[in-house]
């Protein structure tokens, strides 16, 4: 573990990514404490440009709502959706991939055809359809993002498991009569985890983008403010008030960039060939 942090901290992109992520999480967790008022509250005259009043540093939107407060609260929704939907996708994708890779044969065929079924549909289109059918709410959004993002996880895990399946220590475990579940959980998965972790960090970024795109199209949870909603609501007035879209847009950009940098850093740190080069 110490080794891991060491190599993680040696990669500059990883460090920058970590700093961004920690900041974003801090904003999401503690920000709303600094802004006890709801971000939906109309606090000033509408279309107030940024940097004119210190109480609303980033200006106000079409209804006079504080853009800065919206961004703080939006961080919570965007990160939460990103993390939770990734977690759900992992919970579905990892077992599917592990079973397919470990048991092979008909089980593999069945599970992979099932996975491909999801992969053949363009993921964003599928997400839109699911949210529209289930009616937009935070739950349906998380669910639909998870549904469209688990197949790559399953395929990746399957590939890893397929290669690990033939290693001597796994065969030794089989010979000693350990149960399949035990072997998958104790012997195979821990060794297949590093690429999954890298993938997961990128999936969080994708999920944030997906949520933003859905909210942009008006398919966000109408009771929660999110960055994508702010961009979507401000889009039509962009010629009068650029700041309503630009600031949340920058927030999306930075957090997605941060997660990608972390992914890169993790890749460096977890890849044995790369990390040993530095020694």
């Amino acid at each position: 573990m110490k080794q891991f942090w060491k190599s993680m901290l040696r990669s500059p992109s990883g460090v920058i990514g970590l700093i961004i992520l920690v900041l974003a999480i801090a904003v999401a967790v503690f920000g709303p404490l600094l802004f006890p008022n709801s971000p939906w509250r109309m606090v000033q005259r509408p279309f107030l440009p940024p940097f004119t009043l210190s109480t609303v540093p980033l200006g106000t939107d079409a209804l006079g709502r504080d853009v800065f407060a919206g961004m703080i609260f939006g961080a919570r929704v965007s990160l939460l959706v990103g993390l939770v939907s990734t977690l759900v996708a992992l919970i579905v994708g990892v077992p599917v991939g592990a079973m397919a890779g470990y048991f092979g044969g008909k089980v593999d065929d069945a599970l992979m055809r099932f996975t491909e079924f999801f992969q053949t549909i363009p993921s964003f289109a599928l997400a839109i359809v699911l949210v529209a059918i289930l009616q937009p709410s935070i739950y349906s959004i998380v669910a639909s993002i998870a549904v469209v993002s688990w197949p790559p996880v399953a395929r990746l895990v399957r590939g890893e498991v397929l290669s690990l399946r033939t290693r001597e220590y796994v065969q030794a475990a089989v010979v000693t009569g350990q149960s399949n579940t035990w072997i998958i959980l104790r012997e195979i998965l821990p060794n297949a985890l590093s690429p999954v972790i890298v993938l997961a960090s990128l999936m969080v970024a994708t999920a944030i983008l997906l949520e933003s795109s859905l909210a942009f199209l008006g398919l966000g949870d109408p009771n929660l403010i999110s960055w994508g909603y702010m961009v979507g609501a401000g889009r039509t007035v962009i010629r009068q008030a650029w700041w309503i879209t630009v600031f949340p847009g920058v927030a999306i950009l930075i957090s997605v960039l941060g997660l990608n940098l972390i992914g890169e850093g993790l890749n460096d740190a977890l890849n044995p060939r790369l990390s040993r080069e530095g020694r």
Partner: protein
Amino acid sequence: MSKRVLLGILLACGLTAPALAQEPKTGGVINAVIQPEPPGLMLAMVQNGPVQMVAGNIFEGLLRYSPKLEPQPELAESWSVSDDAKTYTFKLRKGVTWHDGKPFTAADVLFSIEMLKQTHARARNNLVQVDKIEAPDDYTVVFTLKQPFGPFLGIFEVGSMPMVPKHLYEGTDFKTNPYNNAPIGTGPFMFKEWQKGSFIRLVKNPNYYEKGKPYLDEIYWQVIPDAAARSVAYETGKVDVLPGGSVENFDVPRLSKLKDTCVTGAGWEFFSPLAWLWLNNRQGPLADKRVRQAVMYAIDRDFAKDVIWNGLGKVATGPSASAIKYYTDDVPKYPYDPAKAKALLKEAGYKGEKIRLLPLAYGETWQRWGEAVKQNLQDVGMNIETIATDVAGGNQKIGDWDYDIAFTYLYQYGDPALGVGRNYVSSAIAKGQVFNNVEGYSNPEIDKLFADGAVATPDSKRKEIYEKAQKILVEDVPVAWMLELQFPTITRCKVKNLITTGIGVNDGFKDAWLDK
């Protein structure tokens, strides 16, 4: 004289003496936006807003209505009412021809009414009090009513009762008649071509019965599906007329400031769209009158008018819009008063039960309004959950009474008997429909007042009845009235006389002319 000098003089004239009437000029082509693209142009079959807007220039009714909703001659040049208010005699204009050259006569009127009874729900409803219709000669039509019906002279506008050519429709299947796609009317403009998804082209009717009219040669109704693109089309000069509702409200101030741009809110008096919140009177906290009153006090309607509608429209005082007959503002008032709302909620024993709010899925303006109302209601302690839905889904929920609060706006058609009563009388409670008494308000006194008001004579008696009804309704708050909406029409200032009647652009091109 150079063009620039001429323009300067014209501008100076326009600025210094706006009241000076100018002589209309003949000729010119106008490009107007039509939004959304109409499903058809046969006004007797479909009556959506955009259909009326285009087809109102092709077809005509017996009467037009001034901005004050006084009847004016159109295909009928005069009319008289018998002393018992049961017989209405219309004298038709002579020398009127259909676009295919056949003369327009009383037979066409009789046929149109028979056809509309089958194809036009509102016309059928308007004609319920009619006992028989006769044509003693080719240019006279006599309506005999079962009993006096006060608003009768208000049902002859082109969208409510368009005249249809008998010789083309009699004995045919109305739905599949080929003339539905190339409508033939008596109006100032004739249908020429329709490139689906692109434009509808109308050309001048050279044989129009009012000599010299119409002044314009052609009208192109441009179909542009995106709101932002419609604003741009105006800015770049592709279109000269943006009828009400064709651009988003927040674009209106910007477009209004452009050079040579005129904006008017007139031309909607006949429809008087009134926006309100359906409040479900049947169940939950809103079954309590005090909670409904609290909703009225909690919502900052001036904010909605000034910010969301950019100052257009008027705060509603009650069930009738102010242009509707017998409107009175002598009713209980509900100013923005959150403290009072809180007190009323407390008195009613509201404990934070969840209340579902359905915004109207008609675009950005309505979405923002939904958010503002939600915030207003939350500020006084109501627990509001917004339900996201599309237009069809929203209609279904409202029709099934599966809501607590829902946005809507309805046309009122000039008279409380035509457009107001339907939302409050208990006989209009019918599941599955979205324009009737959706809130489930039931008050025998109101039922009686609206029943009496429709048939009472004389006018002063009706006035008394409807004023009483308004007072009772405003006290009971069956729905929360928000705003009298105004849909501004934006035009280049060189387009003159476009809006002269109570239905505005819908029949306005008859008188419009282009100052070149």
